[in-house]
């Protein structure tokens, strides 16, 4: 059963919201209201080291995205300094071949990446929930056609497709990137959500809602989706990770708008100015490391949720393995 799994006692210590009182006694256990699930996740984050590391990393990047001016004082776009300066206290990462402060570029570039990660993450997850749950719940012909759509999109190679579309669109900037990535990348998580929703379909509490005569929309929104909160969060993390990697890759090869401040465009200019070959490795290393760190934050959180959902995967203590 889905008992809370962190070591904390299982009593529902979070006050119930008026609207989300637990269902009839028998069904109550299978049904964890969204708020309860979120509280459970909060506890799990504190007790799981991977989750904690991911949360801290994410918080740092969020701060940089919200208040870049507090961390970097220079204007990232201004060619204000001598080009190709080395690392110093005035320029933490040195300056570019155009004389821009790299640290400022890196910090101000966070915002663009985070916007893409969160907007695509939310939008793609929204589509995935809609299509996955609708397919599972409506069944029949609906399920057939929605699943087919999902599967077709799932097997078409996404990155080449993205390259082609972005190529036709002629570097339309962040909005185009967000649109293109969202439209192409929801299918993987939609499939996961569909199978989860399918396994819920025969549960008592849904049967009860049907017998009560609730409308379908009500059942889907109020009964099914809240029970899937942890999977939806995992889907968001997956989509956000893809968005970061895809968007940075497209910007790196010059299919974004090269004038945006972002890590991918930094890499693009570094590659175009042969930064590695001309003794300015930081120009390429720093934004790449940030992409990797942000990606790792999403991946760590996701992996931790996997462990939370599947206790068999949780790390074991070494001393317990005493095999003959």
């Amino acid at each position, binding site marked *: 059963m889905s008992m809370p799994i962190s070591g904390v006692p299982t009593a529902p210590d979070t006050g119930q919201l008026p609207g989300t009182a637990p269902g009839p006694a028998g069904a109550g256990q299978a049904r964890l209201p969204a708020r309860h699930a979120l509280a459970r996740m909060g506890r799990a984050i504190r007790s799981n080291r991977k989750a904690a590391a991911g949360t801290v990393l994410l918080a740092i990047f969020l701060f940089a995205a919200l208040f870049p001016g507090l961390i970097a004082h220079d204007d990232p776009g201004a060619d204000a300094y001598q080009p190709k300066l080395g690392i110093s206290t005035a320029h933490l990462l040195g300056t570019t071949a155009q004389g821009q402060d790299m640290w400022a570029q890196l910090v101000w570039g966070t915002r663009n990446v985070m916007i893409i990660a969160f907007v695509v993450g939310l939008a793609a997850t929204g589509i995935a929930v809609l299509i996955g749950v609708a397919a599972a719940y409506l069944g029949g012909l609906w399920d057939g056609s929605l699943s087919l759509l999902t599967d077709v999109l799932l097997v078409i190679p996404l990155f080449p497709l993205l390259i082609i579309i972005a190529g036709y669109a002629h570097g339309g900037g962040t909005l185009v990137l967000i649109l293109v990535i969202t439209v192409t990348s929801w299918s993987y998580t939609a499939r996961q959500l569909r199978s989860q929703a399918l396994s819920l379909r025969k549960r008592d509490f849904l049967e009860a809602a049907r017998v009560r005569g609730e409308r379908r929309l009500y059942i889907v929104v109020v009964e099914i989706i809240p029970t899937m909160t942890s999977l939806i969060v995992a889907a968001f993390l997956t989509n956000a990770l893809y968005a970061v990697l895809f968007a940075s890759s497209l910007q*790196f090869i010059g299919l974004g708008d090269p004038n945006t401040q972002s890590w991918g465009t930094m890499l693009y200019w570094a590659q175009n100015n042969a930064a590695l070959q001309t003794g300015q490795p930081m120009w*390429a290393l720093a934004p790449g490391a940030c992409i990797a760190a942000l990606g790792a934050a999403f991946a760590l959180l996701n992996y931790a949720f996997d462990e939370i959902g599947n206790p068999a995967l949780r790390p074991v203590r070494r001393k317990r393995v005493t095999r003959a």
Partner: protein
Amino acid sequence: MRFALRRLGFFVITLWAALTLNFLLPRLMPGNPALAMLSKFHGQLGPGTLHALEVLFGVNTQKGLLAQYFSYLHQVFTGNFGPSLDFYPEPVTSVIGSAIWWTLGLVGIVTILAFLLGTGLGIVSAWRRGGRLDSVLPPVFVITSAIPYFWMGMVLVLIFGITLGWLPTEGGYYVSTDSPGLNLTFFQDVLSHAALPALALLITTIGTWILTMRNTMITTLAEDYVRMARAKGLPGRRIMVDYAARNAILPNLTGFAMSLGFVVSGAILIEYVFNYPGVGYMLLQAVQGEDYPLEQALFLLITVAVLVAILIADIATALLDPRTRTGG
């Protein structure tokens, strides 16, 4: 049999979807990219070529969309993708033919290596649960799986190519001093050029194999038949390989069959970083040079490769595991 037919049906539908996408994209995009392309190359193209391109991209035609669609399908199925505009007048098919072997060699070998090494490490890591290997590998590879391939490539270029100066950092061989042929120097030349891109790919892809294998194997190790084998006093290696790994390897095998399909497209950015003369680098050049015929053909090639691999993976899984045959 019904299962195989259903998978085949899915294959056909997906192929059709990809073809249609390829047809619609240049026509629906704002600003009519194909028209811009044709006017750029105006005067350099023969009348026959011009006609073939007009059919492929729907320019200068009074025909309706549906009629255009059918003549497009006809051209694609007869293998007529028109000439490459960057390499004019060479046909697209022969341009691709010269690049594909580089990609198949580099990415194909790395894919096989990553699968073998990763699966092996996953098996050992799960078997020695909580051991030294097991406490290091999973967290490390959760992180490497988030590293963009191309950045790993750049880091390796910096370390081994520029700082240490051990290995060449771009191209498939020394174009100026060496020429392709069946001799030892050319072979060594190719190998040294492939080393860094191969390493970058290996590092970034091996994690998935390790983690999948390890996690499935852990589940398998808890099965009763494994306990039974232990109770019988079978040697540990035998239990690990014949009892646990053999049953746990299925997801990895399916994944392997599928990843073979991604060999063609899997290393676009690695090839870009290293200027490696393969299909991925060619795709990016085609996009940047607005060589739409080459672009279209490459996208179709990539998609077909993936679809065929998925079909094979599905059928292989069904043959190996009877339980999947009834399922979707």
